[in-house]
């Protein structure tokens, strides 16, 4: 549902390469994210105040630099970050890191950091490795469109967090059930905390996605006089909303609470990846980036 209006699949976009991996902001962001990840891992292995504070501080600086990288990229290609797939991926990585940071501040736990940061770095690399190219502006923009895209990306970031939390839950659950806590097992949040954190992330994701979808539908109506013209992206996004609402409901029921709900949350995230990649790239005619 988020994304860019496409223009003549054959490449009417400008071929001028303006923003490469060599951008100082990109390199600096990457360095700070990598340093933050290293310290998060260090802190998980050997908890220390210095490593913990260092990890969070580097992440905050990385976020600031990432913002500047996004800004520089937007200025150079004369488009907002979500006007192309790579820009939207970068925004996704930024929101993922920001969401994680909020989660860390609220729960005062750094044990999840080593598992979120690799995704942030991976997506950031994916977003900034290719050369950025200027794209034409979509047929209509404005705050509603911006809301639509940003809220949807925020939703996917929240789902990504719940995905990571669910993986940690399953690993920790396996360790506890098999009496193999080991060194790291004592440092993870409690299962109950992980479950609640995952559920609240999904709740934030569902609300953002519902609001983002609504904004998108209204925007489409204003633009073309109809809410939906059968675009597969809308169907897949609605399906994602449905399965995550289903998770929210099932995770509180007797049969599903615990490991099963976490497995479901991981399964649901596969749809998010599918929507972000295959649907955007090949299936949608309305939400394609290129």
């Amino acid at each position, binding site marked *: 549902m988020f994304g860019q209006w496409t223009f003549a699949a054959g490449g009417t976009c400008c071929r001028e390469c303006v923003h490469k991996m060599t951008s100082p902001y990109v390199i600096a962001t990457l360095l700070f994210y990598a340093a933050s990840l290293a310290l998060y891992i260090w802190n998980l292995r*050997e*908890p*220390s*105040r*210095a490593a913990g504070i260092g990890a969070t501080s580097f992440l905050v600086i990385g976020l600031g630099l990432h913002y500047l990288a996004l800004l520089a990229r937007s200025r150079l290609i004369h488009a907002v970050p979500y006007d192309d797939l790579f820009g939207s991926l970068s925004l996704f990585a930024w929101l993922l890191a920001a969401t994680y940071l909020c989660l860390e501040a609220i729960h005062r736990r750094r044990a999840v950091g080593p598992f979120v940061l690799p995704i942030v770095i991976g997506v950031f690399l994916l977003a900034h490795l290719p050369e950025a190219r200027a794209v034409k502006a979509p047929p209509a923009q404005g705050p509603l469109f911006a809301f639509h895209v940003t809220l949807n990306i925020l939703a996917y970031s929240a789902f990504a967090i719940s995905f990571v939390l669910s993986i940690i839950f399953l690993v*920790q659950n396996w360790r*506890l*059930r098999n*009496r193999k*806590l080991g*060194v790291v*097992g*004592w440092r*993870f*949040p*409690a*299962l*109950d*905390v992980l479950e609640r954190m995952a559920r609240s992330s999904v709740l934030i994701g569902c609300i953002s996605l519902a609001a983002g979808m609504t904004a998108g539908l209204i925007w489409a109506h204003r633009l073309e006089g109809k809410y939906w013209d059968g675009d597969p992206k809308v169907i897949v996004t609605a399906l994602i909303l449905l399965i995550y609402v289903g998770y929210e409901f099932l995770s509180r*029921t*007797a*049969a599903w*609470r*615990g*490991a*099963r709900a976490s497995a479901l949350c991981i399964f649901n995230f596969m749809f998010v990846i599918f929507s972000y990649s295959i649907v955007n790239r090949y299936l949608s005619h309305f939400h394609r980036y290129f």
Partner: protein
Amino acid sequence: MEIVLIGLNHRTASVDLRERLAFTPEQAREAAEQLRSRGILEESLVLSTCNRSELYGVPREDATDSAGAVELFVASFHQLSLIELNGSLYRHRDSQAVRHLFRVSAGLDSMLLGEAEILGQVRDAYQIALDRGETGPVLNRMFQAALEVGKRVRSETELGTRPVSVAFSGVKLAERIFGKLNNHRALIVGAGATSEQVVRHLTDRGIKQLRVLNRTPEHAVDLAARFGGEVVPWENLSAALDWPDLIVTSVSASEPILTRAMIERSMAARGNRALLLIDLGVPRNVASDVGDIYNTYLYNIDDLTEIVEQNKKARVSEIPRAEAIIDEHVEKFLHWQAGVAAGAVLGDLRKKLVAEREAFVQERLASMPHLSDADRAQVAAMLQELLERVIITPAERMRGIPELRRKLQNFEAIRDLFRLDREKP
């Protein structure tokens, strides 16, 4: 600014001797008062726990063999001869005394490595001494630093985080599953000594909803009454399983008292909420296949013992990290101490030079009657300015450069060199 420490602990003395040398709070106050009134110490603090009795003090500047004097005092205070104490007392001075205290507060010197209670005992001992005015700038600084070391070691290392008792391990496992225990419920099956240990830890960790079952109801009533729980009749065991999040069993039975069928039924009744079963009974009280039920976590005594052993090893492996924190704080304390000593020496030196200038100016100006009062004042002011210049630059360097203070290790030598009075700063 010498620091002395005289003491004994579980490593150097038998329990019998530790008992005889222990200080009650009243005795600690009396001992501190006597040490000061007899002029042996200017600052003092008694730290007395079941595993150690230690006396920290700052002697008078002109005292000689203050450690020996404290040792004699301690022996006479407890009506013991030095022969009886021979080999049991340890003496530490200055940096060794500081390091010893920091190791104590970090739990490195405890019988149970990394135990948490000692930090509270150090805090209490310091607070009492502070309230009575028995401490001064040196011991205040030293004990405040010790408390900081204790906190840092506990927050930055895993020396004290991992449980090393079977009962506490069970409770910590519950926290790995449920998080905070405040809103969770525990069912205690069996009211013996082991159960009591678990209940004690559970209540310490905030659990409020507690039910106790025992074949002998009187024991259950007693345990429940002491920890604010409810008693459930033994006949209601099966129905009672629907209620808790945590079940601790410790009863003598030849067959498991909790079977898979019973737990499956209770899990269905309680909506499959996570259930932790801690089986401390030998033979086991919970059937081993209960652990296969969805959302249940079963630990028996062997599982917990293995965790305890792993945790003990993990604690030992944390010692170097704790020692590094201690080194850092010892260094910091010694810098502060050297700074204070340097300040005192320079202050005394300045006073002496000012006094000498006064005498010198008066003596020399007496033979110069042709000078006016203004000229005399000007000469005096010039000499004063010269002195300030001579003394201020080294003073600033001394205060600002820790390396310089380290080089000038013995400030007493400077005192002797300039024949400075031994006044306490």
